[in-house]
């Protein structure tokens, strides 16, 4: 790989907040102490500190924890809003869309309208919204099996996502994939990846392509790729392999860990040797950041910096968002393992409620306007269900199409017709 001169950084000891006490989420959950104050507050200080953490040859790599920084220069949240009114409305609407959509999915799943395994995103909205609403159309997103809301934040219409979930021809993948397989070329959503860790290298390859277009082909391309994945996935080799490749080739990528503390029934603290995932960035030569993933404004501040860094060609960033899923792992999970006290500790920090409080207290938006958004989204999601329900199923030829680029001799018989249209193909067989 010599397309680019790979910068080799020899990290000295990362400044990982070692001398400063930070309120570790893990320690607090271990000792069951109450969570630290969760009011949304400006974290403008983060950007200052992060922008100085650019890695240059020979310079030490720095790890920055958003918590460290914000403790250092904590701004009084009440003083000045960090977002504009338009931004506030956009963030609120996107989060409400995510929540309402997922609640509707649960209803539709239990009514038997959906196929496959369905994993909902409730509780984690601040991460999707905080990152993806900052991205341009040209930027790419790589998701997991918990992908509906990433798709929505990236702009895939709710009706196309719902129709995909219903396995209908009008779905964003023509009903070919279903819940864990959201793709949209138009929106540069490079997919939901149902296997642990498998989206991360794909995102890394996509980021390489942007860098190549910019640096070798001299195209005006400053596209960034954002890869989302869970805490459990950070114990998989592909994660480490990609931290290495991305830092080695200084790729325009942001690795976003949605640490919801659980991987199905495996508690993060019991599954990993050092639960502070953000610390894994610096040893590979990239900054690591920890941020409160229940606070969309903090996520957005960190995202701005990390995405900006990637866009400026300064390389990758690892961001750990501490969040929580409000439902079971999938709709098939009775969710019996997580302790109710833990659950209520996080549900009391609902990111949507917190944003609502913030925008109202700061006089950015009137409550009635938020209500109007809620109503608009309810209607939108209702409409998405009606659309999905009334859409036609894919043609039977779907079964044989798209296996290869050219289905001749495979999906198409010697008579030039689709084999599946031959009455013999499904004769006496299954009822669909």
């Amino acid at each position, binding site marked *: 790989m010599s397309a680019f001169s790979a910068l080799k950084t020899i990290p000295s000891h990362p400044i990982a907040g070692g001398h400063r006490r930070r309120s570790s989420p893990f320690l607090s959950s271990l000792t069951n102490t109450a969570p630290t104050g969760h009011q949304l507050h400006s974290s403008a200080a983060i950007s200052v500190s992060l922008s100085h953490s650019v890695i240059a040859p020979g310079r030490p790599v720095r790890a920055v924890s958003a918590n460290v920084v914000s403790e250092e220069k904590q701004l009084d949240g009440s003083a000045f809003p960090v977002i504009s009114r338009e931004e506030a409305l956009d963030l609120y609407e996107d989060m409400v869309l995510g929540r309402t959509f997922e609640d509707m999915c649960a209803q539709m799943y239990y009514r038997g309208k959906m196929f496959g395994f369905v994993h909902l995103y409730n509780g984690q909205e601040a991460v999707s919204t905080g990152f993806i609403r900052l991205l341009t159309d040209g930027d790419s997103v790589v998701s997991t099996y918990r992908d509906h809301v990433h798709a929505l934040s990236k702009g895939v219409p709710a009706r196309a996502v719902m129709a995909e979930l219903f396995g209908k021809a009008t779905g964003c993948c023509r009903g070919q994939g279903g819940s864990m397989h959201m793709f949209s070329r138009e929106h540069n959503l490079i997919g939901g990846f149902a296997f642990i860790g498998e989206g991360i290298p794909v995102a890394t390859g996509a980021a390489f392509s942007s860098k190549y277009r910019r640096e070798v082909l001299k195209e005006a391309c400053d596209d960034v790729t954002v890869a989302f994945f869970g805490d459990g996935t950070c*114990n998989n080799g592909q994660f480490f392999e990609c931290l290495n490749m991305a830092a080695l080739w200084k790729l325009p990528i942001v690795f976003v860990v949605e640490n919801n503390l659980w991987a199905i029934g495996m508690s993060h603290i019991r599954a990993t040797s050092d639960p502070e995932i953000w610390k894994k960035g610096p040893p590979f030569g990239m900054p690591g950041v920890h941020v409160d993933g229940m606070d969309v404004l903090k996520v957005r501040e960190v995202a701005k910096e990390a995405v900006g860094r990637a866009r400026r060609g300064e390389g990758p960033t690892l961001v750990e968002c501490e969040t929580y899923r409000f439902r079971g792992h999938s709709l098939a999970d009775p969710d019996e393992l997580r302790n109710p006290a833990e659950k209520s500790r996080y549900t009391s920090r609902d990111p949507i409620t917190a944003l609502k409080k913030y925008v109202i207290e700061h006089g950015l938006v009137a409550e009635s306007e938020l209500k109007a958004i809620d109503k608009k989204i309810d209607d939108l999601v209702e409409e998405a269900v009606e659309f999905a329900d009334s859409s036609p199923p894919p043609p039977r030829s779907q079964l044989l199409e798209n296996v290869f680029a050219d289905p001749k001799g495979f999906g198409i018989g010697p008579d030039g017709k689709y084999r599946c249209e031959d009455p013999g193909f499904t004769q006496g067989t299954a009822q669909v």
Partner: protein
Amino acid sequence: MEMVVRRGMGRGISAARRSFSTSIEAEKPTGEGKPINLFSAINQALHIALETDPRAYVFGEDVGFGGVFRCTTGLADRFGRSRVFNTPLCEQGIAGFAIGLAAMGNRAIAEIQFADYIFPAFDQIVNEAAKFRYRSGNEFNCGGLTIRTPYGAVGHGGHYHSQSPEAFFCHVPGLKVVIPRSPQQAKGLLLSSIRDPNPVVFFEPKWLYRLAVEEVPEHDYMLPLSEAEVIREGCDITLVGWGAQISVLEQACDDAEKVGISCELIDLRTLIPWDKDTVEASVKKTGRLLVSHEAPVTGGFGAEISSSIAERCFLRLEAPVARVCGLDTPFPLVYEPFYMPTKNKILDAIKETVSY
């Protein structure tokens, strides 16, 4: 002994005439046990395996709380968290770790949560587990390794929770591949697999975990590997299958009987090394063979059976060997019933083969 399996649209079948005539092990299942389902039978086998061998371990993703299919329920409480434990999400690591554990003289019983997730572990299984004894000139072996993994369709699983990857492993000398069809078979075959001195990949038909209920003796018993079982005798055509497909084949046999066709049904049980003699003897009697599996037809294990039987029974065959299998497509989401080797497809093929 009565086994009831319900699949798909609630169609029930019952198969009496189960016998263990082929069992050569000292400990045969004797007496009648309680009716239990397949995951409970697996669970019993694991309890016995850990009970009878202090150097046996069970590990994998989520097994500590019983696993996503409840197969490991109660094991951690009973045998402690140093013998029954969760691993992080790293299948390649799980497989390699299991090989190392087995190489040190232990029984490493690893669970891969879905057979679809076994591919990240494929390298370790193929390049290390299968060749450990051979490559070290028998200095080491990982015969204590058993990898359990749920395979196959469940009616709505989509691309990544439905695959049947058994044929990939059948192509690797040094691995045994075992697939049970029912609770009683699962218990006996799993104990044999765990105690076999070779690495075994044990595929569990997840569609049957809850649906298949059968009386299973509570005691420790083993069923022999590499012995197929004739589970229904007939004279017009031999049907060969394994795992969940056996219940579909049984339904097809019933329907064929109504139109006067007598089918002999063989459960292969062990795919590698497979019992060619039993299949050969049957085909020499019936003159016809149909093989059926859920995995795509091309390169599936049915191709191997078809080819071997053509070699051995060429002059006795009255018709080409029929294969009723999954289509050569990824496992589909919406059109699963078209993909699947359903009863009616099998019935059509039986009729065609018999009247060839």
